[in-house]
């Protein structure tokens, strides 16, 4: 089980800020495929992953990064701080 977090419009589109996910995926891309297949709201949020960023255990990562040992995955749009 891993914690999956959503922020900004990704959170709004999916309709929740975080959830525990049972996954067989070995990479972030694999997890995205599983989530997309769940329901329309997930498919809509993950329609274009080039518009998304991902963090693994609170460090930015790539979509082809492995999930082994990861406890927390976060999906969000490009950041707009400052």
């Amino acid at each position, binding site marked *: 089980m891993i914690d999956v*977090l959503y*922020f*900004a*419009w990704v959170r709004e589109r999916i309709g929740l800020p975080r959830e525990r996910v049972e996954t067989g995926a070995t990479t972030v891309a694999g997890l995205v495929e599983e989530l997309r297949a769940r329901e329309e709201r997930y498919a809509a949020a993950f329609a274009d992953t080039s518009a998304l960023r991902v*963090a693994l255990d*609170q*460090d*930015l990562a790539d979509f082809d990064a492995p999930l082994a040992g990861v406890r927390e995955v*976060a999906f*969000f*749009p*490009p*950041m*707009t*701080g*400052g």
Partner: protein
Amino acid sequence: MRVRVRAEAFDQGAEVSAFTTGATGAGAVVSFTGIVRPDGGLTGMEIEHYPGMTEKAITAILEQAVQRWSLVDGLVIHRHGRLAPGEPIMMVATAAPHRADAFAAAEFLMDYLKSRAPFWKKESRDGGETWVAAKDADEDALKRW
């Protein structure tokens, strides 16, 4: 070195004053304050962040700046939550032996905070709310470092 992520307002004058007093050995202190720009009928701004990662990401950016420009000290304050036009959003302060390093480090911090610290801005206008989109120029700004 201090990083503060908070909802409450801050007093930039008092912050710069305290920072300067604590920056023993510095010959230059530079500070920058970002303000909610009251343009285009903006009525408010909501800033979302990723508690935990926010502090971690800003600390890593600040450590990089301190090392690269041999800063005496560095400070980042960033707010989240609901803000009104004209309110301060965030500030950075850098202290170095000479001004060139203090200026460069402050610009570096600003460029990195824009696109590498997990904050998302949502603007409110009479017509509704919209998420602020990241700009290509913000990503390009990182290339000069």
